[in-house]
């Protein structure tokens, strides 16, 4: 059995697109035939659950019972990849909890693959989060995600300031999520389906849908760009599965 992999998607700031990035990850793994389960920490009602209801469970990451539900089952369940969408403000506390339960040590010794997708917002506060989060990143793959999906301009950032924060973390990798056409994004929201299903013109129960061809085209193009970023960082290798690119949903 493959080594379990846990990916935490989070930020301490709200509204920076954590769930959107988590959704693209689930679509990416689905397209590459990587069995995945997800946990949505927006308890009691989760956005990720709305889009990927079949593989997502809502949990309260601060509750011991739910921590057990996630981490005690890592070796027991068949999907080897676990994606956790950490709600706003929960990234640092969640990492602290992981340290406390010995999870980070397990990652350091290589028993578990651990990756953090830290979604950055346009403010300096986002940069300050980096240094805070960096303290926990010893055994993890750390990805700093500049998310342009909602047309963030990162206007407050000065490149040299950013570089000084960026340099504090050894082996952090930058990722860029491009902008998606607003109307296309909105339609996927309304449809409440994964991006892949929207592209394939399917409804929540796989029934034929009637989404706009133009909007589907925009989503397909955007998703391909996002996935090329995941390909660049060799995400399927990181989670320990060989990529079956021929199975990409684009060609399904």
């Amino acid at each position, binding site marked *: 059995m493959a080594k379990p992999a846990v990916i935490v998607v989070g930020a301490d700031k709200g509204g920076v697109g954590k769930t959107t990035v988590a959704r693209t990850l689930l679509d990416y793994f689905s397209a590459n035939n990587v069995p995945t389960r997800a946990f949505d920490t927006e308890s009691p009602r989760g956005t990720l659950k709305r889009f990927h209801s079949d593989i997502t469970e809502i949990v309260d990451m601060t509750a011991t019972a739910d921590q057990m539900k996630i981490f005690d089952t890592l070796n027991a369940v068949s999907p080897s990849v676990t994606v956790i969408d950490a709600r706003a403000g929960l990234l640092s506390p969640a990492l602290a909890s992981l340290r406390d339960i010995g999870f980070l040590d397990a990652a350091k010794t290589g028993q578990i693959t651990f990756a953090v997708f830290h979604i950055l917002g346009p403010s300096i506060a986002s940069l300050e989060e980096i240094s805070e989060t960096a303290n926990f990143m010893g055994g993890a793959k750390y990805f700093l995600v500049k998310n342009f999906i909602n047309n963030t301009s990162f206007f407050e950032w000065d490149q040299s300031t950013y570089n000084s924060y960026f340099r504090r973390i050894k082996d952090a990798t930058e990722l860029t999520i491009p902008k998606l*056409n*607003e*109307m*296309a994004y909105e339609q996927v929201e309304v449809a409440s389906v994964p991006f892949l299903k929207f592209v394939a013109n399917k409804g929540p129960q796989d029934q034929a849908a009637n989404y*706009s*061809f*133009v*909007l*589907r*085209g*925009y989503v*397909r*193009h955007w998703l391909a760009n996002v996935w090329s970023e995941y390909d660049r960082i060799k995400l399927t290798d990181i989670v320990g599965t060989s990529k079956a690119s021929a199975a990409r949903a684009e060609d399904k």
Partner: protein
Amino acid sequence: MANTPVYIICSPRPQAGKTLFARLLSEFLLLKNGAVTAFDINLKEPSLLDYLPDITETAEIENTYGKMQLMDRLIIDDRIAKVIDLGFHAFDEFFKMTEEIGFLKEAARRNVAPVILYMPGPDRVSARGHDMLRRQVPPSKLMVIDNEFVIRGEMPAGLSHGRMLSLAALPTFLKTYIDRPNFSFTDYLRQEKDSSTELHEWIRSNYLGFRELDQNLTLQGS
């Protein structure tokens, strides 16, 4: 099985003869098939809508909603030929969008057969536009229209490769005659008893060229 043809008449420059060509082609398709839908994306130039209001719809591609209104119609395999009169100001945006949304690929899946009818001038903008189209469009779906009234001589070297269709120049007085908004090419053929007139021959010659083009297109993949 026959395809649904979509003719996209375009140029990155004004005064290339797009609307004249779109009028001719639309009237031919109406005569041959009994139905055609034309889309006028030409709001800043002489308009197809002024000539063929019964079969022409206006469209705009400056915003996503307009793009949906147009492209979601073009992708339907309803066996009704579509003619797009694409204004020069919309040239770049249109092809940027079609590439991004994968129009040609999706059209092939849905039995829709688009063809780009490119109307260049002898200028550098036209050469650049053609280069862009050649990168994006397979040769079988790209045709250069040699509008003799615009090119006035040899077609520039870079543009003369691949498929080409000629549109002969008419004398100025006839050009003025056919430019009247109420002029119909098909009505002229029907009403003019003397088939040896220059205009009669010009229309028939163009219709003949269109017949071949339409046959090739509708039978593509059959």
